[in-house]
């Protein structure tokens, strides 16, 4: 303990003498140091001065690095252009939702007013938790020049899991939950949840879902459908609605259980493990939160060439993902410039290419300059993808993230253990996890 503390103090003292803006010894917090403008302040300044502040700086971006197609887009297309046009050096760092939340909470607990990350790639539950804990800087997103092009009319882009971003995050892309099947094994995949239930009973042991975020999204979508559809789940969390809808979900799962893979006693750890089962003919369906992922996975040889993606006619959960700036970002100006570039038609078009990432655009077609609108329309489509108009027709916005939170813990406590007791008998979900904000900061 002494050695670690001594090391810590030595290192801290070194940094303090080297850089006055990084003084955080002994957890003493200070006010925002001069020269370190907050995102909110920058949002009120003219854009040119923001760009000028950002020039020559480094932007550290916490984002998920688990998909090589995304990494390729960020490292090979985005980063060089940022360097060339704005003199910004992009520093991508691998971190996903819960890890980002943990990191920022720990930083605030440690009293770090000058943090280590400038930009975050988040959405849904992560955004909700970060916002509630006051860990995000802003508002700033609406001050970006490219924000005028965003499709604010779409409920999927304008709200993040039903919550208003309120300028604390800027949209980046959109995805839709899709099922993946093998056209040689399943020439006629079921198109509704009911048909899926029938299919499961007709093909015992050939369907399952994963324990990760994708499986949770599947369960959430199923619960929303059983609870009356997405229109019933807009607005803030409603515990009575959750109790009623989840009861139907547990019922559906209990009836399907004996005919699931391994009789519902075991579930793959994450979506990669589910895709492995699908590709190797242990089950006949995989799922993906990115409806176009099937193209890149077939290209990589992770999925068989006859794989196809589709969405259920009962509605497919769609959501947008965003970028946000943490409360203690050292380079908010650089982060804002990057966010603006991400929204540019050029960047959105490149991102949407099916032979690359294939992520949906968040821009409104009618607000684009005609030249760009034409280019978007001419984007090639792969036969394995879900057609874009089909996607739009069945897209449903996500509900409040509290539904997913409770669904995750209730599923773990009740469905996974195979008990027959009714989880909704566990009391009012609202009182079970009431929690005021956890601020322990300055």
């Amino acid at each position: 303990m002494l050695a670690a503390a001594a090391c810590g103090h030595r290192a801290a003292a070194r940094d303090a003498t080297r850089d006055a803006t990084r003084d955080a010894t002994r957890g003493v917090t200070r006010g925002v140091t001069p020269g370190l403008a907050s995102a909110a302040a920058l949002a009120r300044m003219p854009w040119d001065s923001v760009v000028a502040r950002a020039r020559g700086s480094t932007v550290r971006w916490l984002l998920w690095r688990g998909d090589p197609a995304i990494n390729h887009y960020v490292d090979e297309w985005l980063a060089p252009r940022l360097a060339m046009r704005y003199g910004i050096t992009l520093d991508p760092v691998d971190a996903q939702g819960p890890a980002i939340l943990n990191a920022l909470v720990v930083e605030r607990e440690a009293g770090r007013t000058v943090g280590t990350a400038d930009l975050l790639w988040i959405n849904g539950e992560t955004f909700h938790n970060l916002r509630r804990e006051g860990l995000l800087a802003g508002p700033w997103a609406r001050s970006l020049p490219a924000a005028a092009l965003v499709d604010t009319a779409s409920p999927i882009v304008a709200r993040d899991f039903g919550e208003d971003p309120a300028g604390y995050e800027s949209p980046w892309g959109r995805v839709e939950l899709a099922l993946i099947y093998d056209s040689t094994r399943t020439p006629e995949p079921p198109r509704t949840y009911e048909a899926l239930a029938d299919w499961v009973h007709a093909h015992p042991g050939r369907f399952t879902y994963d324990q990760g975020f994708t499986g949770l999204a599947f369960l959430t979508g199923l619960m929303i459908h059983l609870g009356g559809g997405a229109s019933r789940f807009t607005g803030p969390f409603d515990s009575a609605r959750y109790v009623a809808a989840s009861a139907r979900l547990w019922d559906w799962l209990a009836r399907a259980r004996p005919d699931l893979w391994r009789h519902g006693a075991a579930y793959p750890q994450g979506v990669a493990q589910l895709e492995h089962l699908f590709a190797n003919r242990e089950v006949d369906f995989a799922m993906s939160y990115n409806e176009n992922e099937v193209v890149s996975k077939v290209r990589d040889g992770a999925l068989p060439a006859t794989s196809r993606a589709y969405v259920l006619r009962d509605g497919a959960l769609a959501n947008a993902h965003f970028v946000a700036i943490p409360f203690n970002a050292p380079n908010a100006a650089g982060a804002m410039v990057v966010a603006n570039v991400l929204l540019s038609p050029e960047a959105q078009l490149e991102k949407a290419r099916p032979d690359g990432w294939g992520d949906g655009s968040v821009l409104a077609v009618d607000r684009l300059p005609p030249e760009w609108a034409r280019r978007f329309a001419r984007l090639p489509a792969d036969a394995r993808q879900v057609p874009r108009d089909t996607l739009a027709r069945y897209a449903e916005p996500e509900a409040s993230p509290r539904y997913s939170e409770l669904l995750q813990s209730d599923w773990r406590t009740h469905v996974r253990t195979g008990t027959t007791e009714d989880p909704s008998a566990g009391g009012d979900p609202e009182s079970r996890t009431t929690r005021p904000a956890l601020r322990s900061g300055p």
Partner: protein
Amino acid sequence: MTARASGSAPGAALAGLVAAPVVVGLGYSAAAAIGLAGPAARGLSLVHIDRVMRDATVWRGLAWTIYAAALATALATAAAVAVAIGFRGTGIGDRLARIAALVPFPIPYVVAAAGAVLVLGQSGLLARLAAAAGVIHDPSGFPPLVLDRPGLGFILTFAWKEVPFLTFVAVSVLATRGQQLEETARTLGASPAATLRRVTVPLLWRGLAPAVVLVFIFIAGTYEGAALLGPTDPLPFAVATYERYQALDLTLRGDGFVLTLLGLILGLAAVAVFEWTRARAERLRS
């Protein structure tokens, strides 16, 4: 460094320094378990401890973890003893066996686990061989060895993974201590079988015991292997701990720290047992 004859103070202090980071971690986990520290701290509260203690799945998972780790350790020990005793000589077969036993040593847990899925899974290499031979017709015909309640794939994989280390220790023990005692027994007229039973194996066991304790605690504490190979219910202890850290519901973080604390305490117990067996082995030498 002065050569003090009774230098117990500096020695003990230095050992304390080495253990200090773990003690710090223990303290922080303990504080977080009762709500005084950690990302979701809300003030002194026993709700996390209460929730974990009352959760039957945690205890079932812990029981499964102990069962699987014990079985894997026992298998690995048996294999290591067999190799150390059966291949003691200097012939080409003996040397080949000893090298081959040691080669898998640097394979990390995550690679071993991922590989096990590819080999032992219902659509894995063994299953494909069976399908090619016509014994089965589709993956479901092959017995489930991964994600199964008995944990067969988990046990086999981790037993295999730990054979190199235990073989290394076993061969060392025999090489350094076995000779004299065995020769003495033989010159006093004991038969090879009796020597084996009364001298070699007990000696080996004494010297191997500390390593066996360590292997047990290593297998019990691994995450990736348990996540990829272990059953979904009962959920292995390391997976249960990690899940609570990553849960969307922030209030479950404290539960994660309770489990961490429990893991650290079990680690302490294991170290105590380790030291006890090591002391016994040391007494044998003097």
